[in-house]
């Protein structure tokens, strides 16, 4: 359980660092961002592999976001159900009344975002089914022709005050 909290905290910190790297002088530092993304991936793996059934939010199983959670550890919960909810468990503010489908899509996208950061370095390609996340780590290819910033702001997740979302909105 504490591993999960630790992992979550590390993921939040890492996302913050990636965001800050965009505004600092001298351009994006490839080395530092690579290291941060490696930490992000490790934390994500721990996060997804730490079995804490009590933390799963209720909700109907859906397979929409499951496909995006690539590389999940073996023996994880059935696709489409609990793993997708994991990133949301810290959102005390989030009312449980959110539409299940919407919630699922949000968490699915969050998990996809993590998988983008973690397993791949440039988030330019469409890895998430939701699309629109091209900007996610577009700054990593700053030295090459980067896509102009497309802020992913057309998903419901962004209206939440979930700390995850706050970090993502920053992109």
């Amino acid at each position, binding site marked *: 359980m504490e591993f999960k909290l630790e992992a979550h905290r*590390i993921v939040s*910190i890492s996302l913050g660092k990636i965001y800050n790297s965009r505004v600092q002088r*001298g351009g994006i530092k*490839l*080395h530092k961002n*690579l290291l941060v993304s490696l930490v992000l991936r490790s934390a994500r793996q721990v996060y997804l592999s730490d079995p804490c059934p009590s933390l799963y939010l209720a909700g109907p199983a859906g397979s929409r976001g499951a496909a995006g959670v690539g590389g999940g550890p073996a023996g994880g919960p059935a696709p489409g159900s609990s793993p997708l909810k994991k990133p949301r468990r810290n959102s005390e503010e989030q009312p449980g009344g959110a539409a299940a489908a919407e919630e699922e899509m949000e968490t699915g996208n969050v998990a996809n975002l993590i998988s983008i950061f973690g397993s791949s370095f440039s988030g330019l390609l469409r890895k998430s089914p939701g699309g629109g996340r091209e900007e996610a780590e577009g700054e990593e*290819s700053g030295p090459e022709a980067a896509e102009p910033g497309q802020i992913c702001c057309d998903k419901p997740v962004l209206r939440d005050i979930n700390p995850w979302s706050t970090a993502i909105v920053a992109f």
Partner: protein
Amino acid sequence: MYFVLRRKSALQVKIQWGPMCIYFPPTVGAGGGNDIQWCFSQVKGAVDDDVAEGASGIRFLTWKWGAVHTSEADIISTVEFNHSGELLATGDKGGRVVIFQQEQENKIQSHSRGEYNVYSTFQSHEPEFDYLKSLEIEEKINKIRWLPQKNAAQFLLSTNDKTIKLWKISERDKRPEGYNLKEEDGRYRDPTTVTTLRVPVFRPMDLMVEASPRRIFANAHTYHINSISINSDYETYLSADDLRINLWHLEITDRSFNIVDIKPANMEELTEVITAAEFHPNSCNTFVYSSSKGTIRLCDMRASALCDRHSKLFEEPEDPSNRSFFSEIISSISDVKFSHSGRYMMTRDYLSVKIWDLNMENRPVETYQVHEYLRSKLCSLYENDCIFDKFECCWNGSDSVVMTGSYNNFFRMFDRNTKRDITLEASRENNKPRTVLKPRKVCASGKRKKDEISVDSLDFNKKILHTAWHPKENIIAVATTNNLYIFQDKVN
């Protein structure tokens, strides 16, 4: 045969059997190379080490609580002695290079070696803006490397993130006087007043040191340059950025050869970057480069034009018991330096210094822990970004001692022969010349002894990233944030 244990002191136990005895733990003396005693010599720079986060790139002095604070531009970013040790160059975040020259020794008063005084100061790099990518290019000097002296002038290479410059530093101590057709201030004389012929002669003048850029090597690096290294042929040099290494000829600025390229076709597959590169000191065809994964590759330029396939790969298997979220970060190599002999190379990662024998690839021959007590603090160091600090390391002239920096303005020396190590502090408290530096000790856990410092009271803003050792003497230059300390061994 019986054993006798005697407690020699609070720190030491003597174990004796018959005529033999050993001390445990081994003597923690002044350490660092045949019991050298290091003394404070000089300190250069602002009075206060505190850096006010001022407007980037603009140098200003602010008064704050009666003390003078200098801006970020004065942060020292590189330190390098020249081949004779007579000159000491520093580069800073503001793009300036300051060169110090050692005074000629006073043969009569030989109680200390010559002092280093400012010889030349010049602005090497200016901030630039890449309009195509909307990126600002920092003027911070990442590295300075001296060329060996061939004539009266001195030459050095300095680089920022994108551009390398060759600077010529020359002295002028004479000037021509008595022109026939010109006044002393340069204005031409009225020709009708010229009635005699006068030949100009050279007369002495006050020494003037001029720095002029002789070559500018630009537009060859997409990523940030982290290293430059001059080849032993003294005609070519390499420059390395995160993904590529280029080979230049010192005379040719409009082209360079790419000799290493680790950029994947798909940037998504990027797993490691180049962190440092250096030419072998004797073999002009050999160079090494280190990676963020903790590996070092040795390449031979004779093998192929593009040295993507290494001749040797130096890697130590990871200790699985030390695995954590941050294992990958702390194994990233921040500096690699060949020994003067060329037989060994040293690498610095976040927590340790490793010495590698070029003939043995599967593990280092020596490993020295710089600040192992930080291993349990990696998460905090990740949060405050300290875990990304890039410490450098250096050899002494005889390759018997290695030195590297740490936090709290501490720096460490490891004697390879005696296996002793010492921790010293660069601080203005010991600022009387010839004051012997007192060894410091960090208390990792448990009871803190007198004069020890606990890990939690270390100041992580005071970091020593750059150190340099005189090529022939026991003189070291240690850079704190914006001060340069010079220490010498005690001369009796």
